[in-house]
Structure formats: C-alpha cells, structure tokens
C-alpha cells in the first residue's frame, strides 16, 4: 500500500435511524468510542444518515476533511450500501473505500441488552477493515438485448407482451403444450365475474402473433449460465411428434385418434385423446402426442390413425428431444403455483367420495367448455345443497401456515354461480375469517351475502357419509362447530367443494437452484425486499413474478408481470451492466503453479499457462466468491475487497474487548 499510516483518514457515521437504532444503542457513546480509534479523523451521528442532509454531511466531510475511508454504521449493507457508495463517488472518493457496519438488523433490532457493547465491537471491526480498503475499478459490459420469460401463465404472458411491445426479443418457455396457465382453467373471475377465457385468450393470441416473441411450449429450462446482462440458457424441447410448421390445427387427428386418457386440463373429470390440444383455444393450436397413451409409440407402429388422416403430413414420430441455447440479458421467472392435493387431509373425504371436489374441479364443472358443458353435476346428478370449505391446508401449521389469499373471494363467486345455475340451491360457506381486502371485494361479499348463502364460521373437522338422522341418509355430512353460536353442527349436503392451499410448485427447489434463487420459509421463491424490491431477487438480472413468489389473485399477478417487464426493460435499455469489481487476481511472483485453484473455480475463470507455469484469472468471468483465495496454498491469490489482510484485521478488532489489555495479539 502506497499510503503511509498517517495518510489514512477515516470518517465514521453513526445513524440513529430514528429510534430504530438510537432506541437501543447509545449512539453518543458509540460515536465517541469511534472517535478514539486510530486513523479516525471524524466521527458523527445523525438522525437519518440516508436522508439528504445525512448524505450531505458525509460528502462535506470527505471534501473538507480529506477523508479517504468512510464507515457508515447503520442498517444492513443490503439496504443502503448503494446509497453511500454513490455519496462517496459524488465526493470523488472511490466507492469501494466505504465500509458499512450493520448495527440495525444484526444488532439494535435483535438485542434487548448488550446492543451498545456489540455495536462498539462491530464499529471497531469496520474501522479496522476500512483501514485496508483499496480503490477498485468498476467494469461494464454490454447487455444482451433479449429476455427469457419462464412460464406461460398470465404473469409470464403479461411480462412477455410488455417486453416485446418495447421492441425487444422475448423467449417465452412453457412446460405444458399450451400457454394459459391456471387462469385459462377458471370459469369466471372475481369480483367482476368476467369470463376468464374471454379476457385471457386475446392476450394468448397476441403472444402467438407477436414477431418478437419466440414461443417455446412443451419445453423446459434445464441450465442457466452467465450473469446479469449475459445469460446463456439451455432449453429442452420435448418431442411433440407434430411438426409445428406444418400443422394447421384442423383437429382431424384428435377426432380420429381412438385412444383416450384423463384430461389434465379438466382435472381428470373429462377425457382427451392420446393426441390432443389441452383445450380448444390452445396457443399454439398444435396438438401433442402423449407417448404414454399413444399405441403407435407404445406398440411400435400399431394404429397410426393420426398419420393416416393428417393431410399435411404434420405427424412426425421421428421427433427427438432437442436442446436449444439462447442468450438473454434478463430472466423473468413466472412458474406459478400448484394447488395442494387435499387427499392429504383424508378426513375431508377427497378421493373417497366422488362428490367432494376441489375448487379447480368446480371451475371446470362450471365452465361451458368443461366436461359437463357447464352443468354443475357429478355422475349426472345436480346438487341441491353445496358446502364450500375454506382454508383447506391454508392457515394450518400442519400444512401451510400462510393464507392463500384468493379462496374467500372465489368461494363467494362459487356461491353466486351455483345460485345462478341451480334453482333453489342451498350454499354453505365454512369459513374462519372472510378476507375481502381488494378493490371491489367487500362490495362483492355484500352482494353474495344477499344471495341466500349460509355463512357458518368454523373449520370443519370431517366430511362423512355416516348418517345420524334420516335427513342425513345418502348425503355428505360436514361436521363443524358453528363458532358464532358455540354449538357443534352437522350439515348434510349433496356436494362439497374444498378450497385447497396454493402451494409452491413441486419442483420449486430445483427451479430455485437452476436460477440461483432462494426460497422463503414457506417454499415460495424469495424476493429481494418484501416491500421495496418485490420482483427482484438476490441474483441480479433474474426477476420473479406472480405466484412463484407467493399466493396472489389475478390483478396482483398481472401487476407483477408488468413490474418484471419494467425491471428487465430497465436493464436492457441501459445497455450496459456493471460487473463485480471485487474479483480475484493471481500474484504471479508467489504462484507455485500447483493448479489447485484451476479445478476449484465454479466459473472456469482460472486457466493455467503451461509455458509460464502460472495460473491466470479471467476477471470477466470471476464472480468474487473467494474459493480459490482460501484454497491457494501459496497465498498467491488475492480476493479484492475481502483480502486476508482486511478480514484478519476485522476479526482482531471485532474481539478487541474480549482480552485483557496487556495481552498483545
């Protein structure tokens, strides 16, 4: 280091954060403690260091007192490191000469006593580290002007359309044969009761028609390499056995195919053929062949009805799985949710009694394109009384602690639809709390309340076919407490609709790993900040929108889709992205050529030169994890911004109060 000891001038800034820090930590004591530390030129405290006057304070000191290191003791660096780095830059100080000391999230907020003592140790550590901080150079690279959207539900559709509207290339990848997601399965949407398909299909068609959107259905992302601005994504395209470029969507193949299977789209309530489009408005309107049920595939060449009847010759049994690589600057993950299988709660009788169904099954029964043509019937019988059980698997620590947010509202919608379709039907809502928090929701609740719906406040324990009275014979009996009266009740009905929890996709963990994201405790993917950064993630350039982040209704999902598009567009429109400055480099004089580092690097950023017998680090590829730094037996690799010197000084100072004063370490 060129600076001599006297050249280092550190400014320490202790933030009160209102009473968030000052309420627990004695900020005056902390400031005078900081003032006494070596090389500290100035120590101050202020109500809100991140405010304009707070920032100005630091700027002024840098300029007037010639500070060349800044320590801000405030919130987590994850909150305001960018803010204070900018302050340094504005005052012509290299932003990497700043150290943040976390005395809020990891001190004042979590300790009732002993917070000031701990804060002193943390500040002393930060000062010691700051002493060794060095200016780093920020590098920029160009951003690939294309976006990958993963998941073709309403969130992904909305994001893809918006990015494409701005004139950028979008790759939209969907696992199923058609886009549309859960929303296309719904009948009506609350609280306005507009038809779900009617409002969604125009958007689906727009996706298909847009020249900048490359739609890849029946496909999955299998690998993601690279970093913000420059991702390289590998997509597996499963064989459809139908040539998309030749198929006209005439449907003759489906008509002629003799083999049937349960329709996934209709939740198994209806059937489809072995060659099928999941629903009439599918996008793309190109069928797929389900190899498990196709006799041509299973029995090597027997059948072939579709082959015979397709005039365009679009059927192609020679298709194989294909891997496609695309390059994008940003990724929007919109993989949605799964509906919980309520058979896990066996006492509610799902799968034991055919007339106990899930909410999604009811959506299909109610829908004019559904298996019953929109007639609410099971085995041809129309129910005269229906129980709707809320919170199945939600708000229950045995299953999911969270509230699924949409069930109260769609349960009200169901009651309305049943009332509309079945004359004189009795509907019972078994609820715990009615949560009607959105725009127009309470009004809808009011409307539904006037429509002869019976509200029973209580969580049912059981759906049974054991009749205790003649009225219960042949019925399903919902066993519950009417908690508002404080009396156990038995309600005999003809049909029970369960409102199962919206839960993380079964493969949420793999998705999180593939895109280098985290999951929150409930299993949904974790956003960067719950309030202020709701679609960004810890992995720069990857955004999460819709129910992959947590249960949401359609308006919220759409809003998030648009937010994800805005984030991706901001990145692409800027055209450049800053790379990690805290990379590693090899001190060639010390390198012994042992090659240990080469195999350790997860980014293959280290190469070994056989002629020089030295390792080299490609800093464009280095992410600064420091694995090689810790592993180098010669200590020849330096990890910028987290050097051995910096960390060891930090550790020693962190513990300065734990030893008797006489002990020199």
């Amino acid at each position: 280091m060129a600076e001599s000891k006297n050249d280092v001038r550190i400014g320490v800034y202790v933030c009160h954060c209102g009473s968030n820090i000052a309420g627990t930590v004695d900020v005056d004591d902390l400031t005078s403690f900081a003032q006494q530390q070596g090389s500290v030129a100035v120590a101050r405290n202020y109500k809100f260091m991140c405010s304009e006057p707070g920032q100005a304070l630091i700027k002024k000191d840098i300029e007037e007192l010639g500070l060349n290191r800044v320590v801000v003791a405030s919130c987590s660096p994850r909150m305001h490191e960018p803010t204070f780095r900018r302050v340094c830059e504005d005052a012509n100080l290299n932003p990497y000469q700043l150290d943040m000391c976390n005395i809020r999230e990891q001190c004042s907020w979590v300790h009732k006593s002993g917070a000031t003592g701990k804060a002193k140790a943390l500040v002393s550590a930060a000062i010691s580290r700051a002493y060794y901080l060095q200016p780093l150079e920020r590098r920029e690279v160009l951003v690939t002007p294309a976006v990958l959207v993963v998941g073709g539900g309403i969130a992904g559709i909305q994001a893809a359309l918006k990015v494409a509207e701005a004139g950028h290339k979008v790759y939209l990848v969907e696992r199923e044969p058609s886009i549309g997601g859960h929303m296309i399965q719904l009948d009506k949407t609350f609280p306005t009761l507009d038809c779900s398909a009617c409002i969604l299909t125009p958007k689906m068609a727009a996706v298909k028609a847009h020249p900048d959107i490359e739609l890849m259905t029946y496909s999955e992302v299998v690998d993601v390499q690279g970093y913000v601005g420059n991702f390289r994504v590998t997509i597996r395209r499963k064989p459809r056995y139908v040539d998309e470029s030749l198929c006209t969507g005439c449907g003759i193949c489906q008509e002629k195919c003799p083999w049937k299977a349960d329709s996934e789209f209709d939740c198994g309530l209806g059937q489809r053929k072995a060659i099928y489009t999941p629903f009439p408005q599918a996008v793309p309107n190109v069928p797929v062949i389900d190899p498990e049920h196709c006799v041509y595939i299973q029995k090597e060449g027997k059948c072939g009805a579709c082959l015979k009847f397709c005039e365009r010759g679009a059927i192609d049994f020679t298709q194989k799985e294909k891997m496609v690589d695309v390059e994008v600057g940003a990724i929007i993950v919109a993989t949605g949710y799964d509906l919980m299988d309520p058979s896990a709660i066996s006492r509610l009788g799902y799968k034991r009694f055919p007339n106990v169904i899930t909410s999604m099954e009811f959506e299909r029964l109610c829908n004019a394109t559904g298996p019953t043509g929109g007639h609410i019937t099971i085995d041809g019988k129309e129910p005269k009384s229906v129980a709707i059980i809320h919170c199945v698997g939600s708000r229950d620590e045995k299953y999911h602690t969270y509230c699924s947010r949409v069930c109260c509202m769609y349960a009200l919608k169901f009651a309305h639809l049943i009332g509309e379709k079945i004359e004189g039907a009795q509907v019972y809502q078994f609820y715990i709390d009615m949560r009607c928090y959105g725009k127009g929701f309470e009004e809808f609740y009011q409307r539904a309340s006037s429509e002869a719906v019976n509200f029973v406040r209580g969580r049912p324990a059981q759906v049974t076919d054991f009749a205790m009275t003649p009225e219960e014979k042949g019925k399903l009996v919902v066993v519950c407490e009417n908690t508002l009266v404080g009396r156990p009740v038995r309600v005999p009905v003809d049909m029970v609709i369960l409102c199962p929890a919206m839960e993380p996709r079964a493969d949420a963990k793999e998705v999180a790993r593939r895109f280098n994201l985290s999951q929150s405790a409930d299993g949904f993917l974790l956003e960067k900040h719950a309030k202020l950064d709701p679609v960004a993630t810890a992995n720069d350039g990857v955004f999460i929108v819709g129910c992959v982040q947590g249960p949401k209704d359609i308006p919220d999902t759409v809003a998030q889709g648009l937010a994800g598009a805005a984030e991706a567009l901001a990145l692409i429109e800027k055209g450049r992205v800053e790379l990690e400055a805290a990379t590693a480099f090899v001190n060639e004089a010390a390198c012994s050529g042992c090659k240990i580092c080469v195999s350790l690097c997860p980014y293959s950023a280290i190469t070994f030169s056989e002629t020089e017998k030295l390792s080299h680090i490609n800093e464009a590829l280095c992410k600064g994890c420091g694995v090689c730094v810790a592993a180098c037996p010669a200590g020849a690799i330096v990890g910028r911004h987290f050097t051995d010197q910096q960390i060891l000084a930090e550790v020693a100072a962190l513990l300065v109060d734990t030893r008797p004063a006489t002990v020199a370490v």
Partner: protein
Amino acid sequence: MAVQALAPRSEPVRVMKDPLGNSFEYCYQCGLCTASCRTAFAMKFTPRQVMNLLQLGCEDEAAASGSGMLCTACYSCTFRCPRGVAVTDMMAAIQRLNIHRKHADRDIRRFYLSFMRTVERHGRFHEIEFMTRYFLPNPLLLRAELGVGFHLLTKGKISLNPAGVKNTKAMAAMFHKAEEIEGRL
C-alpha cells in the same frame, strides 16, 4: 343484562404451558377442536370457547363450566389443531382446576380422587376398593351400574384381591413428592 367486565389477565397456571405444543394463546378460534370432539355437544363451553376464556383470563369460569370433565383425552383436537395448540392438555388443566377448586359435581370429583387413591395405596387399580370408595357415599349411583356389575362378576372379570406393586410405601412417597413439587392448584 349486565355487561360483565373481563377479569384482568392473570398468569396462567404453570401446567398449561405444555411442552408438546403451543399454549392457548395461539388459538385463533376456528373451532376445529370442537368439530373434532365427540362430547362437545354436551359441554357448556365448547373446547374452542374454553381456549377463548383462558385467553381472556377467565380460567375459573372455564373450569366451573365442567366442560373439562367431558374431555375423553382422545387427542383428536390436539393432533388436528392448525395452530399447534395442545388442546387436550389445556382441557386437562381445567379438569384439574375443576376438581381441586371443588367446582365439580361431588360424584365426579369422587370418581377421580377415589381412583387415584386406590392407585396411591396399591400402585395399581383395585376395582373393589375403588367401588367401595366411589359408590358408598352415594349408593344411588350403584343402581345404574347393576347391569354392568352383574356381568363383570359372573364373567369372572373382577378380582377380589388383585396384586399391587411390591413397595406400596414408595408409591405413596411418589404421590407425596409430586404434590410437594406441584402444590395443589
């Protein structure tokens, strides 16, 4: 009707803080416990209402209702509770309050205490001794049991002199120690 002021919340009895699950504070009044309970129909306050009374500090009112005495400890409520409340243990706690604070119907109270007394004396249940203790103060009770008693006797299912534990003194000492540690509620 007079509006009753709620009692200030007191420190709940120690044993309600159960190690297995959450205490009644966690209850959010969904009523799944009541719905799972086979005897709730006969209770003055359903299990859910008992949790609410405990939350509001009205444990005496909960105990006096006798609802706890109808709990069969089948554990359905505890196993199902979506908030992990150890409902069965809460019900047992008000059962104890009911018995020790003498809210209970004298016969039921005697049923519990006679049972425990025979166990204290012999280390095991002793039918004849229990029956003597239970029925003697109120022979009317016996009339209802004649049918069952007849069967039991004729089918050879009541032993007149069952075995007990070897060291009955040590058993009694255990009972005393428990009372010393716990105190009576």
